[in-house]
């Protein structure tokens, strides 16, 4: 993997922040976008831009081809059985809200159960809290093993008949742990429950095969996988298309509109009301091509070296506590704290050194309570980060620790 060549494809990386070379370690929040993705969106606007599905003219036809062509591309990339199983949306949050309200809520009765974990991003927790409050169903948290994966053997304490859905992350945005979706899907399906997955942190790092994993629905966002913001998709298994209700109504999702009632198109179009973000869909397609060109094996191999070095470096520092020590081979990130230093104070110091890290609760407040910390620092890598950057990051971490411990003199 020619890392220098890859870095040249991301012009944003080539800049100084506060007089220091930028080290972008906030990829789990948003990854950077390569030239090819930007170019694809520019080309769309400069040659093909029109509204899709409605026009009878040439541009409308080209735009529709570009849009529907990307749907096909996403379907192949996730190994969906049918292209129609891919529904475009604004991203993971919108996808999970859609599944909560359109797929699960209509099936929920008082006393039913939705199972989840304390590791979820708020986007995979709050929508379920909301539907439970509306229907009288309850949310229960699955037991976890020491390595933060779901503890399957102790899953038998639930009344099977009341479990309607198991909603879970594929890869955690705080600990980097990967859940065994195949085992969870077998377990859920034996009990007639759905398996719904938040894949936002998985797709940048590892290949996903929805048929092999056996998921009922899988959500992801473009902006965490080198694509544009404002676009994502849901894979929704065809067998759920009839039972799932649209949650947005209006133009383009309708079949026939009467004065007082209407009927709707087939899926996926019945779930895509209004004018969709067409240029972002084109950008998403370019991001998938970009990842495919380099290959998940190459990306995963490089990133695991970076993360291993990050873990090793942080573990060697006194006064630094890494929070994902029990995680086997975390994907793409480390969460840690500098003892006695609030993450916000540390993040300001990192920023002065040109290093972008995330500090906060990472939209995972229930997990912060489990970890017994209000917030953490998180360094998350992408394919363009280097071992040299990791080295510098560890050096700076030491300086930041010393500044807050001993004051300015220590850093001279």
């Amino acid at each position, binding site marked *: 993997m020619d890392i220098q060549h890859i870095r040249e494809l991301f012009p944003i990386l080539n800049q100084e922040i506060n007089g220091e070379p930028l080290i972008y370690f906030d990829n789990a929040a948003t990854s950077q976008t390569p030239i090819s993705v930007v170019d694809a969106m520019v080309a769309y606007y400069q040659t093909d831009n029109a509204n899709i599905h409605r026009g009878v003219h040439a541009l409308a036809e080209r735009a529709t081809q570009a849009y529907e062509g990307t749907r096909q591309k996403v379907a192949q990339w996730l190994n969906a059985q049918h292209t129609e199983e891919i529904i475009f949306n604004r991203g993971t949050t919108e996808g999970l809200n859609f599944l909560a309200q359109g797929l699960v809520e209509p099936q929920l009765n008082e006393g039913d159960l939705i199972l989840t974990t304390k590791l979820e991003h708020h986007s995979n927790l709050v929508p379920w809290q909301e539907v439970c409050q509306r229907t009288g169903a309850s949310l229960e948290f699955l037991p976890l093993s020491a390595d933060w994966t779901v503890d399957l053997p102790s899953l038998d304490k639930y009344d099977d008949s009341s479990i309607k859905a198991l909603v879970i992350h594929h890869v955690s945005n705080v600990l980097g742990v990967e859940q065994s979706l195949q085992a969870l899907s077998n377990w859920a399906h034996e009990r007639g429950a759905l398996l719904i997955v938040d894949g936002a942190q998985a797709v940048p790092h590892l290949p996903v095969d929805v048929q092999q994993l056996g998921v009922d629905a899988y959500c992801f966002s473009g902006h965490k996988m080198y694509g544009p913001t404002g676009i994502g998709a849901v894979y929704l298994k065809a067998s759920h298309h009839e039972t799932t209700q649209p949650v947005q109504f209006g133009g383009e999702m309708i079949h026939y509109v009467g004065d007082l009632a209407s009927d709707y198109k087939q899926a996926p179009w019945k779930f895509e009301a209004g004018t969709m973000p067409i240029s972002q869909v084109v950008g998403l397609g370019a991001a998938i091509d970009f990842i495919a060109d380099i290959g998940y094996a190459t990306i995963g191999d490089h990133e695991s070296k970076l993360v291993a070095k990050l873990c090793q470096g942080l573990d060697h520092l006194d006064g630094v506590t890494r929070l994902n020590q029990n995680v086997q081979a975390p994907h793409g990130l480390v969460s840690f704290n500098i003892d006695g230093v609030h*993450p916000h104070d540390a993040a*300001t110091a990192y920023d002065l050194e040109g290093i972008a890290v995330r500090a906060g609760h990472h939209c995972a407040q229930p997990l912060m309570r489990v970890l017994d910390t209000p*917030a953490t620092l998180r360094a998350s890598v992408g394919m363009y980060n280097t071992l040299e950057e990791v080295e510098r990051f560890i050096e700076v971490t030491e300086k930041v620790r010393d500044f807050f411990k001993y004051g300015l003199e220590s850093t001279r």
Partner: protein
Amino acid sequence: MALNQLGNLYQAVVMDHSRQPRNRKVLTDATHHMELLNPTCGDAIQVTMQVEDGIIQDIGFNGSGCAISIASASMMTEVMKGQPVDTAIDLSHAFNQLVGGVNEDTIQLETAEVEKLLKDANFLDGVKKFPARYKCAVLAWRALEIGLNEEVNDLEDGLTTQADA
């Protein structure tokens, strides 16, 4: 060395307040209170006050946070103790401007008077250069301003919490 600039934000006075906060307490006889959250990190600062005859007779803060939010809360209590409510609100607006907030409030006090009354809080002027930390600095001051309109009705009254938008 980029870290040198940290000294502009984390001055000795600021570090002193964050390590040994003044008035870190919950008033049991509070007449007014407010707890605010900093939504970016989940930190919460709670302010309790005893207001009599239009004067803040006593004030305390409690909660967890970064060095900036704790130091700022500690400084705020020292500034506010003994001030009439009108002056307190004025000073809160003045502090907001000091740390880079949008100036939408007319301040009645003279500039020299403001500087004198803001005491140690003047040392947080470095926040102006760190806009990402503005919310940390104003959290306790916002809690005071909102709290002055939140009377404690009775001892059973749970603490009002609202996210800082």
